[in-house]
């Protein structure tokens, strides 16, 4: 057997991650062990993953391997095809960036009460779990890896467990992760019931009735959608992701959500034998609602990390819009457009991983140097940490989907897919898809508003508090890692053709059609349908922009005019404004809060205190929390109280109940 094959390299990456996990266990009194040895292992594993991903995208053949582990009748199988390769590439990229970042970042924890072995150990397990999920070729290994990922990330969310907010977020996360795990297991159960065994190979051949197919799809959507953070099952995400250390937030938002997207694609496009167009409608609808609500809730946040977490909800929504369109076109017999929608969704998956990791790492840098997460205390950080300022700006531009950066490419492809709605015969669908496109447009514009707020309040203006004045340049590790991701944002935006060419194996595998014509005119051009329908040339756009800037700058800055005189802020000639007179994040979002007021739960009170001064209090919360979660919460507690009556506190009683349950189950099976 050839030892140098993509799948072996992938397993090497998993082994390296586990090594990093084991090495970290010894880092109790020796932080250098975590910072240099464990993170080097993690970084090497990331590089190995990237290589594997690119390699398998290049060769485009599925690579199978049986592991000497697992159950006696069901050995674990791993399989590396184009889809797994692509997600391995995403995991690898972000893991590498995080491994470069972490040595600079964990210094924050090495002198306190926080335990470095816990941090490093679970980070390794977490990454290994994600790598194994995308490699798994049977439901058993998939679920084991999935739980490894969920449980180890729980310990990372509650890493700072002395804070009650972390504990609460952790509990919520654990509950939601298990609801998701359970529904995924049920979805696999349906497939395995018809296919005979738990291996994916058998599931693909299973003959399902349309009813059972839809049931399996519904369960998978519920399970993977919960884990990915689709509205209305997103409530755990903005609590859990910010609670973890920032580089772990980057991994969770950047990569873990993508693993859920992977599961959804694997299930609906690959394992289920046929695709129904009505699934596409549901996914498209959920995606649109998630993206719009995600960005609106993000606008109301002034905790930097929580805001970014809400943007993950938004971007997952955009990814699912692409996938929904793809399912819709695949179900109505338009494989070419299905391929386009799939590429749009997948490209956004990669883009979101890159810019969200970049933004979380930037937020981590800010938290590291100022000790603050609240934007209202920041301001003027651009002059104190210029490199982070530049990289964060690139992240903001990318996530706001502005050309020529990467977020724009995937939204452009999604729009192009939606604009082909005229090929459909169903008039309702033809008019539904444009509405989804309108929601995508609104989402994009609101995201830009939100990131003007983030960047303007955090990096521009003047320091609003003592914490922001304390801000200093961050160390080289953190800067390098952010710079790497920022360059990637630009490259992915300027050379989309190269990557789409590589990705062609995925639609080939899943919908039986590739998009070779999208790059037919060379790497300079992107022509998703054909050149007369739409074309975009990011490299030429970049050249044109740079040429105009250079021209206008060089024309205007000649000679004597070069001089710039520094003075005070003019501000319409009023007295010089102080820091407290700047617009705050809350003030910036106020018009939008008023226009979309119905979607939020707003509590606003003005109290007059004893000394005559006024206290203004404003709380904006998720309406869904009260509509959906509180009733369920109450119901669960009520049910638990009822069930609690059978708790006698005696072991005999419990054993009796177990015996009874077993007997009933046996009777049911026989």
């Amino acid at each position: 057997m050839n030892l140098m094959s993509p799948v072996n390299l992938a397993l090497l990456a998993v082994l390296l991650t586990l090594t990093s996990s084991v090495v970290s266990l010894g880092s109790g009194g020796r932080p250098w062990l975590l910072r240099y040895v464990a993170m080097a292992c993690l970084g090497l594993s990331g590089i190995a993953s990237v290589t594997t991903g690119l390699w398998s995208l290049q060769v485009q053949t599925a690579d199978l391997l049986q592991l000497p582990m697992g159950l006696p009748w069901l050995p674990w199988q791993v399989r590396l095809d184009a889809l797994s390769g692509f997600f391995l590439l995403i995991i690898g990229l972000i893991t590498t960036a995080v491994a470069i970042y972490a040595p600079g970042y964990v210094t924050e924890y090495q002198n306190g009460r926080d335990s470095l072995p816990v941090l490093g150990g679970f980070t390794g397990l977490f990454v290994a779990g994600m790598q194994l999920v995308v490699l798994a070729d049977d439901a058993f290994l998939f679920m084991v890896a999935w739980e490894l990922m969920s449980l180890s990330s729980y310990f990372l969310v509650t890493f700072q467990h002395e804070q009650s907010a972390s504990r609460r977020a952790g509990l919520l996360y654990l509950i939601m992760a298990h609801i998701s795990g359970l529904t995924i297991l049920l979805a696999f159960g349906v497939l395995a019931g018809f296919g005979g065994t738990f291996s994916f190979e058998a599931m693909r051949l299973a003959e399902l009735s349309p009813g059972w197919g839809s049931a399996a799809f519904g369960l998978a959507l519920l399970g993977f959608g919960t884990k990915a953070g689709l509205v209305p099952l997103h409530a755990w995400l903005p609590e859990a992701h910010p609670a973890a250390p920032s580089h772990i937030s980057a991994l969770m938002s950047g990569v873990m959500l993508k693993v859920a997207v992977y599961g959804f694609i694997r299930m609906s496009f690959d394992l289920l034998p046929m695709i129904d167009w009505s699934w596409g409608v549901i996914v498209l609808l959920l995606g649109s609602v998630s993206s719009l609500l995600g960005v609106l809730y993000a606008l109301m946040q002034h905790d930097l990390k929580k805001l970014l977490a809400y943007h993950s909800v938004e971007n997952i929504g955009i990814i699912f819009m692409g996938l929904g369109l793809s399912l819709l076109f695949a179900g109505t017999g338009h494989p070419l457009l299905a391929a386009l929608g799939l590429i749009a969704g997948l490209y956004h998956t990669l883009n979101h991983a890159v810019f969200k990791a970049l933004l979380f790492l930037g937020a981590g840098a800010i938290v590291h140097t100022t000790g603050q997460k609240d934007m209202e205390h920041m301001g003027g950080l651009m002059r104190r940490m210029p490199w982070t300022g530049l990289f964060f700006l690139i992240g903001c531009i990318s996530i706001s989907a502005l050309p020529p950066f990467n977020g724009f490419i995937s939204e452009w492809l999604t729009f192009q897919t939606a604009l082909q709605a005229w090929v459909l015969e169903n008039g309702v669908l033809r008019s539904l898809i444009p509405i989804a496109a309108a929601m995508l447009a609104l989402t994009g514009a609101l995201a830009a508003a939100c990131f003007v707020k983030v960047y303007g309040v955090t990096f521009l203006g003047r320091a609003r508090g003592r914490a922001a004045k304390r801000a200093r340049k961050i160390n080289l590790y953190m800067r390098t890692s952010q710079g790497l991701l920022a360059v990637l944002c630009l490259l992915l935006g300027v050379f989309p053709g190269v990557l789409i060419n590589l990705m062609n194996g995925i639609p080939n595998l899943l919908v039986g059609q590739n998009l070779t014509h999208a790059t037919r005119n060379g790497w300079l051009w992107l022509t998703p349908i054909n050149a007369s329908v739409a074309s975009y040339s990011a490299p030429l756009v970049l050249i044109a922009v740079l040429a105009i800037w250079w021209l206008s700058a060089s024309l205007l800055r000649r000679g004597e005019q070069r001089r710039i005189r520094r003075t005070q802020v003019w501000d319409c000639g009023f007295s010089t404004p102080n820091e407290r007179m700047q617009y705050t994040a809350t003030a910036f979002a106020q018009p939008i809060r008023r226009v979309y007021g119905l979607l939020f739960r707003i509590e606003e009170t003005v109290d007059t205190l004893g000394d005559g001064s006024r206290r203004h209090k404003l709380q904006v919360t998720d309406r869904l929390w009260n509509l959906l979660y509180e009733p369920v919460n109450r119901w669960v507690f009520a049910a638990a109280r009822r069930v609690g009556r059978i708790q006698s506190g005696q072991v005999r009683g419990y054993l009796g109940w177990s015996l009874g349950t077993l007997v009933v189950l046996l009777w049911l099976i026989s």
Partner: protein
Amino acid sequence: MVDFLSSNSWSSSSWLLVAVQAALYAVAAPLLSAWIKKVKSHLQNRRGPSLLQPYRDLGNLLAKEVLMAHTASPLFRSAPYIVFGTTLLAATVVPLLVVRLPIETIADVIVLVGFLAMARFFLALAGMDVGSAFGGMGSSREMLLSALAEPAMLMAVFTLAMTAHSTNLASMITTNLDAGLVLRPSYLFALLGLLLVAVAETGRIPIDNPATHLELTMIHEAMILEYSGRHLALMEWAAQLKLMLYGVLICNVFFPWGMVSQMPLGYPAIAVAVVSLIAKLALLGMVLAIAETVNAKMRLFRAPQFLNLALLLALLGLFSNVILETGP
């Protein structure tokens, strides 16, 4: 359908035409604003400034020294160049006199909206940079209005795109040129929607007043309040370019007659194109001036209703296209 990438329009002489088109936009933009001001003054029984006044203003500003706040960051200095450059590029994408220039293949109408969003992003950031109270206010309002206007704009152009089966501006225009005088209900809705969006996006009455310096009502002026000298000139010029861009977009996409679409250019055809463009823009400018004279500026929180009307019109256009006009 013409495959624009493989057609012979892709030559160095056509790139020269692109450069000429960009220069024409830059040179003519102040004139359009001056024309609107002139008509408006006339309607209000004033003589109004000369048509050359905006050029003199720009010249003055370019010659002056730049004053900049101590608190300004590098972003403040580069924003005028970014805003001007991106707006000029966006304008160049819109065919002015000749259809099928190579620039139209490197960016379609969605990219055009993206360029405008990019310019606005930096304009709003620049407003927040020096840390004055008015700048943040302007940025916040601008981003609200744009968030409402952008979907309406995209829906209006999607209506056109659905008819032409293409998001390429040249394709849209040639489709309309070839179709001749056909009355499409969808176009009517899209035109109305796009007109409302154009009014909002270019900061005209009733959304914003370009002539105001009353602190609490400013939007665009508030964002560029701290600028001076050549930086201010670039910002003003970019605003004039944006007005021109929307004017040309509306004129040439909905009423493309007179434009040159055959590639060996002849002088008579160009003369016709120039005259027809001037006539169209002059007429549109008069319509805008009349609308600005008979309307008063709205309260900020009435603006969402105005823009929702635009979105609704555009969506109606799209629906009537999808239901009435396209068959599979």
